[in-house]
C-alpha cells in the first residue's frame, strides 16, 4: 500500500517542501530509502523502526520502499524521521491517510519515540503556510517558535505515540500561548551606564537616527564595545514582522531561545573570522554573522585586524542589504540589512598620543589597511578618549538613558519614513545621490557652506553626498524640516577621513 506525507527541508534560511512516499508490500522484509538522502537520513531507518516499535505500534515485516521527492533537493539531517514514520503508519493502515492530506509533519525521532526539537521551526511554518497546509505537527518544544507564523494551526507533539492519539482524536495538545501579546523589550544594557564620551554618544545617536554606518576610534578600554552594545537599545524597536524575520534566521542558526525576538540582534564576531563565516557559506550554505545581524547591528572590533578578504566580502552585502552565496551550481540568498559599527585604535601601538612611538610609515600602513571600499560605506567617524577618572567617580545625575534617546531616534525615523515613502530607501543612509539632492535642497546659504567645506577639506563627490545625507539626519534628529548651515558644519565634523593625510 502507498502513502505520502509532506515535510520540509531547511535550505539557507528558507524551507522547501519535501514529499515522503512510502510503499509497503509483500516480499522479503527490507527497508530501502531513495531520493538523494545523506547518511543521517539513511540512519533514519533504524530510528523509525525503533521509535515505531517502542511507541507500541507495529513495524511491518514487509518490503518497504521510501522515496524523498523532489529528488534534486539535497536533504540532510534527521528532520525526515517523523514524516517517514507517519508515512509508514499510513501505508500500513495504522493511521488514516486522509488526516495527513492537509497536514505537514516535521521532527526528529528518538529511539523511544519522543520528538526532538530542531533548528528552523519558523522557516518550516512559513513554508507550510506558503504550501497551503492547514496543520503543522512539530516537536512540542518548537511549537512556541512555529506559532509565530499566521494561518497555520501548529500542533506541538511530544512523541510519536501522542501523534497517533491526536489523529484518533483521543488527545489534544495544549494550544500554544496567544502570541500577539508580544511586546518589544526595553531591556538590554542602558546608555546611562556609559560615563563621559559625549562625542561618541552624539555620533551613536545620529548613526541610529539615520541608519548610518559608524566607525569609533579610540584607545583600548575607552568604551567602544560598551557603546556599540547599547546601539540596539536606542534603535527603533523591531516591528512584529521584523521580529519574526529575526527569529526565523536565529531559529535556523540554532540561536533562538524558542520565543520571538524582542530586540534587534547584536553580533560581534572576532577579527579572525573567515569571509564565509562573516557572510555565510559552507557545503550546505549556512547564514554568516552578517545575516545573523540582519535588522540589527554588526560590530567589528579591531577593524584593522580583520583580513583584507573578509572586509572586501562585506562590501556587496553592505550595498545591497543581502548576500548571495554560491555553492556548486546553486546560489542561495540571505538577507543582510545591518548597521555596521567598526572600532579601531588611533594608531598601531594603541597607546595614548603622548606615549605613541609609531613612525609615519607604520601609521600610514595602518591607515591603508582601514581605507578602501569598506570605508566608502561608513558615514560617521568619532573619537573616544580614555575616560577621565573624575567622570568615572562622579556621582549625581547620570547621563541620558537609552529610553530617552530611542524616543528621539524614533521621531527622526518617522520623519524620514514620511519623506521617503514611495522610494526604495527606508532611512537617510539608504538615499542615493538622486534622492539626496531631492531631499536636501541647497539654497544659497547652504551652497556657500558646502563650497567652504569643499575648499577647506578637499571633499570628494562621494564625500559631498555623504555630508548632505548626514546633515539631513542631524536636522531630522533635531526636529527641523529644513537643513541649516550648522547641520552641514556638524556633518563635515564627522566626515570620514582615515588615512587621508597619510595617503597624501
Amino acid at each position, binding site marked *: 500500500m502507498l502513502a505520502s506525507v509532506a515535510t520540509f527541508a531547511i535550505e539557507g534560511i528558507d524551507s522547501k517542501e519535501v514529499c515522503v512516499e512510502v510503499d509497503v508490500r509483500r516480499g522479503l522484509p527490507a527497508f530501502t530509502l531513495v531520493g538523494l538522502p545523506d547518511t543521517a537520513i539513511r540512519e533514519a531507518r533504524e530510528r523509525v523502526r525503533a521509535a515505531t516499535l517502542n511507541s507500541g505500534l507495529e513495524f511491518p515485516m514487509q518490503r518497504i520502499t521510501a522515496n524523498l521527492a523532489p529528488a534534486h533537493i539535497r536533504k540532510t539531517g534527521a528532520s525526515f524521521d517523523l514524516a517517514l514514520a507517519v508515512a509508514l503508519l499510513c501505508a500500513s493502515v495504522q493511521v488514516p491517510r486522509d488526516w495527513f492530506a492537509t497536514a505537514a509533519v516535521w521532527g526528529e525521532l528518538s529511539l523511544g519515540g519522543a520528538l526532538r526539537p530542531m533548528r528552523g521551526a519558523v522557516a518550516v511554518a512559513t513554508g507550510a503556510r506558503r504550501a497551503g497546509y492547514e496543520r503543522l505537527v512539530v516537536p512540542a518544544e518548537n511549537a512556541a517558535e512555529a506559532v509565530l507564523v499566521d494561518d497555520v494551526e501548529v500542533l506541538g507533539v511530544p512523541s510519536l505515540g501522542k501523534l497517533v492519539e491526536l489523529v484518533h482524536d483521543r488527545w489534544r495538545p495544549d494550544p500554544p500561548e496567544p502570541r500577539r501579546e508580544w511586546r518589544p523589550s526595553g531591556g538590554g544594557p542602558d546608555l546611562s551606564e556609559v560615563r563621559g564620551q559625549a562625542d561618541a554618544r552624539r555620533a551613536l545617536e545620529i548613526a541610529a537616527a539615520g541608519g548610518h554606518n559608524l566607525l569609533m*576610534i579610540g584607545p583600548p578600554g575607552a568604551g567602544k564595545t560598551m557603546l556599540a552594545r547599547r546601539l540596539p537599545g536606542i534603535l527603533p524597536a523591531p516591528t512584529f514582522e521584523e521580529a519574526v524575520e529575526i527569529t526565523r534566521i536565529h531559529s535556523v542558526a540554532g540561536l533562538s531561545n524558542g520565543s520571538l525576538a524582542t530586540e534587534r540582534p547584536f553580533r560581534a564576531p572576532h577579527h579572525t573570522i573567515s569571509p564565509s563565516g562573516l557572510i555565510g557559506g559552507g557545503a550546505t550554505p549556512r547564514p554568516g554573522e552578517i545575516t545573523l545581524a540582519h535588522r540589527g547591528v554588526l560590530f567589528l572590533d579591531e577593524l584593522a585586524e580583520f583580513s583584507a578578504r573578509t572586509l572586501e566580502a562585506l562590501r556587496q552585502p553592505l550595498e545591497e542589504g543581502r548576500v548571495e552565496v554560491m555553492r556548486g551550481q546553486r546560489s542561495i540568498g540571505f538577507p543582510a540589512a545591518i548597521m555596521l559599527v567598526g572600532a579601531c585604535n588611533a594608531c598601531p601601538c594603541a597607546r595614548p*598620543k*603622548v*606615549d605613541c612611538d609609531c613612525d609615519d610609515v607604520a601609521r600610514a600602513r595602518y591607515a591603508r589597511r582601514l581605507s578602501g571600499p569598506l570605508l566608502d560605506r561608513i558615514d560617521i567617524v568619532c573619537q573616544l578618549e580614555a575616560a577621565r577618572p573624575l567622570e568615572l567617580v562622579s556621582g549625581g545625575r547620570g547621563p541620558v538613558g537609552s529610553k530617552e534617546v530611542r524616543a528621539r531616534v524614533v521621531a527622526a525615523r518617522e520623519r524620514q519614513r514620511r519623506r521617503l515613502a514611495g522610494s526604495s530607501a527606508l532611512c537617510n543612509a539608504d538615499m542615493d545621490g538622486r534622492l539626496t539632492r531631492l531631499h536636501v535642497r541647497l539654497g544659497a546659504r547652504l551652497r556657500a557652506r558646502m563650497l567652504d*567645506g569643499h575648499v577647506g*577639506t578637499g571633499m570628494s563627490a562621494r564625500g559631498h553626498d555623504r555630508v548632505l545625507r548626514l546633515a539631513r539626519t542631524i536636522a531630522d534628529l533635531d526636529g527641523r524640516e529644513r537643513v541649516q548651515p550648522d547641520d552641514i*558644519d556638524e556633518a*563635515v565634523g564627522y566626515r570620514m577621513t582615515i588615512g587621508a*593625510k597619510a595617503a597624501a
Partner: protein
Amino acid sequence: MSAVCDRCLRRGALIGFLSPQIQAAVGRPRARTAGLLTLGEREMVAALGGSPAGAARRLLDEFDPALAREDLERSRCEAICRHAAEYPPLLAELHDPPNPLYVRGGLDRMLALAAEPCVAVVGGRRPSDYARGVAQRMGRGLASAGITVVSGLALGIDAESHRGALDGGGGPIAVLAGGPDVPYPRQHGGLYRRVLERGVVVSELPPGTQARKWGFPARNRIMVGFATAVVVVEAREASGSLITAEFAQDSNRELAAVPGQVDARVAAGSNALLHSGAAFVRGTEDVLDLIFGVGQGPRPHLRPVELDAGLREVLDSVEVGEDVGRASARSGLSPGEVRAALGRLEALGLVRRDSFGGYERSGPPAMST
C-alpha cells in the same frame, strides 16, 4: 651654472667613491666624521686605504672634469666649492665645510635662500602630534616672515617643518645624506618634488650616491652650517637631533628647543636641552626674537581670521589637544555644536584632520571678534 673648480669636483667624486670606506672607518652609526672630511684627497685615500685604495688613486689620476660636469648637468644638479666667492659665508665658518656642495633646484636660488637668515628646524622621526603641529606652524611662520627654513627631509619633524615652510610661501633648504638627486626617505618623494618647486635640495655627496649611515650626522652639520639658529622641536634621548644640537653649540649657533610634556619619552631629549640652557621657544615669535632681538626683525605676515566666541573656544581646545567631550564640557556647547564648530573651522582652514580622524591646528592665527 656651477661654481666649482676642477680640483674640488674631483674631491667630491672621491668622497662619493669612498663613502662605503668612510662608513667602515666611522663604524658606529651616530659617530661624527671628526676630521675626516677636512683631509686632502691623497691623505683621505691613505687614511681610509683598504683594498680600494688603488682604485681610488686611479680615480684621482684619471679624473676627467669635463665628463664630471656633463654628468652633473645630466642629473640636473650644480655644485659650488669653497674657492668660489659666493660660497655661503656662514657655511664656510664650519670646522669642515662641505666641499664641494651639490645643489639641486638652482644654485642661484640656493645662494639667495642662504643669504636670508636661516633657521634649522629639526626633531625626531616619530614625534607626537603636538610636536608635528608645532613644527608645521613654526615652518609656516618662519617662512612667512622671510626666514629660510632648513631641515633634512626626514620623517616626522623634518617633513612637517618643510611642509609648513611651503605652506607659508617660503623656499626651504633640504639637506640630504645621499646625492641631491636621490629622494630620501623614499616615501617623501612627493615632498621632495614640492621642495624643489620653490626651494633647493643640497648635499655634499655627488648625484647618484646612496645615503649611508655616516651621512646623517654629517648632513646635520651642514644644516647647522646654513643656520643662524637651530630649533629642536622634539627629540628622544638618543635622537640624531641631539647631534645637530651639539654641532650648533660647537659652531656658535643659537640653540633653542620647544618644551614638551615633562613625562613624555618622545620629548626627553629636547627637554634635557632646555634644562641645560638651550633657549626656550614657544613658536615662531620666540625664534624671531632669538635671532633679531626681542621686538626687532620681521614679523610673520599672516592673514588673521575673525571668529565668533564659540569657534574661538573650540579652536583653543584643538590647540591644547582636547577631545570633543572635554571641549564641550569646558565651553558649554553641546557635543554636536562642538562638531559643527570643528567642521566650520576645518572649512575655514584653521584646523585639519590628522590621519585618524582627530583634529590638529593648521593655518593662520585667528583673532576673536
